[in-house]
């Protein structure tokens, strides 16, 4: 790698906290963000709960006209981007904005807008008239557009889309653009707002969601014997990636260095994990090789671990293939047990959880463990139910998306 890339700012809006410090508190306490859906009347849906962002009022951050013209997924993006930009301490009056990019992922984009407008069109008599904001509110790349417009950042700007790997791809591509010298700094991350009728209904039809309607708070239980699907989450995470030279030159605080990245494809099935795990294994190995680390030098893996019956076993097997006996020395945890699955934003908030683990010496727990799954090696440390203290020097964060997209990030202390 030609240039070192570091993280100098973070921002989070999650089902367990609306900024980084409350998110961290939620991770330490093992809080569940799940509850009955409030975004719409979910009565009669096979799943009627989700991990929603709470107490969020867009007008606290955006003017009334912006709120109307911007879908919630992009509103979330603007809120966390603002947190991260302020956190990184750049002077917006003097920074060379042509050297700042924005790479922002989302799995689906403006789902609320899509649903409202298409349903309205379906009710129309004759040729429907479509709202002129339908397209610019819906398209996934508009979040990156809005962030650039608000701050004037005119460097590289686009949206990677790879379902639940989108935000990880955003981080990787941000790092690549910095390494290639195209920009010094990138606002990157992902956001998702898919707790809608079609979002819940669509994932339900795939039998991907937990149906534990009588106990939403324990529904997301990765690696537990009785896990029955993921819990849909929403929110956003932002990271400021910056070249080490740029960060040093301006005396910025540095949270972590992005040591290695991996990305590839299963090339197998649109939604099912490849049974031998070879794609995921190779993806983790790519990241290890790029980082120049051996398996004994990683202390924590923040897994994709969505709480689906097949996915959790496949990822565990892949970790054991890559790490061998060193797997028993790892802390492994799925923060989705607390936040639910934020789809295209998952990679961003999990990268932030990983960076907080590096900086604060704790491993966020996998909550809701009740019964071991005989298919999963009980000697592994999944950090069940309570956070653990540990000095973490390097952490891996995995993200996999429908379509067979695999991504791994490795962060280390500087």
């Amino acid at each position, binding site marked *: 790698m030609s240039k070192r890339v570091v993280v100098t700012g973070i921002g989070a809006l999650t089902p367990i906290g609306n900024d980084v410090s409350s998110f961290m508190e939620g991770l330490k306490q093992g809080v569940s963000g799940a509850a009955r859906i409030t975004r719409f009347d979910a009565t009669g849906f096979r799943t009627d709960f989700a991990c929603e962002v709470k107490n969020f009022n867009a007008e606290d951050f955006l003017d009334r006209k912006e709120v*109307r013209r911007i879908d919630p997924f992009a509103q979330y993006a603007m809120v966390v981007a603002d947190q991260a930009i302020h956190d990184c301490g750049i002077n917006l009056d003097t920074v060379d904005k042509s050297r700042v990019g924005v790479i922002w992922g989302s799995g689906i984009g403006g789902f609320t807008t899509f649903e409202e407008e298409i349903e309205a069109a379906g009710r129309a008599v004759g040729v429907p*008239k479509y*709202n*002129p904001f339908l397209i*610019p509110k819906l398209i996934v790349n508009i979040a990156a557009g809005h962030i650039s417009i608000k701050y004037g950042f005119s460097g590289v700007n686009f949206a990677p889309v790879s379902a639940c790997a989108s935000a990880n791809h955003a981080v990787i591509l941000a790092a690549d653009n910095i390494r290639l010298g195209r920009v010094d700094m990138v606002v990157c991350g992902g956001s998702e707002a898919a707790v809608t009728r079609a979002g819940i209904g669509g994932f339900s039809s795939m039998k991907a969601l937990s149906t534990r309607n009588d106990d939403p708070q324990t529904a997301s239980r990765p690696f537990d014997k009785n896990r029955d699907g993921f819990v849909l989450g929403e929110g956003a995470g932002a990271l400021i990636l910056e070249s080490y030279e740029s960060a040093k030159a301006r005396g910025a605080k540095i949270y972590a260095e992005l040591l290695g990245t991996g990305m590839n494809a299963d090339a197998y099935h649109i939604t099912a994990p490849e049974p031998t795990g070879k794609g995921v294994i190779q993806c983790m190995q790519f990241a290890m090789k790029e980082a120049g680390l051996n398996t004994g030098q990683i202390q924590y893996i923040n897994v994709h671990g969505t709480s689906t019956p097949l996915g959790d076993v496949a990822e565990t097997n892949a970790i054991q293939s890559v790490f061998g006996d060193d797997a028993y020395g790892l802390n492994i945890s799925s923060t989705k047990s607390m936040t639910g699955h934020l789809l295209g934003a998952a990679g961003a908030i999990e990268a932030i959880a990983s960076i907080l683990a590096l900086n604060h010496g704790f491993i966020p727990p996998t909550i809701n463990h009740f019964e071991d799954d005989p298919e999963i090696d009980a000697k592994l440390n999944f950090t069940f139910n309570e956070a653990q203290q540990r000095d973490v020097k390097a952490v891996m964060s995995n993200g996999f998306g429908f379509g067979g997209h695999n991504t791994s990030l490795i962060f280390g202390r500087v």
Partner: protein
Amino acid sequence: MSDIAERVKKIIVDKLGVDESEVTSEASFTNDLGADSLDTVELIMEFEKEFDISIPDEQAENIQTVGHAIEYLESQVSA
């Protein structure tokens, strides 16, 4: 002020996020009230919905101020 004028102004305040005091008869949507081309299309659609009429494109192009809108809608709705 007519009922139609009241309803038109309410839509403009709501859609453009401006203060009611700015919505004068002479105010231009684009020059004075901060509307872009997408806002003006949406405003016309809102007028159509509110008054249950259809505004042809060639008429819509002539509606550039608050006064134009009120005048046009009064001629169509009372007719």
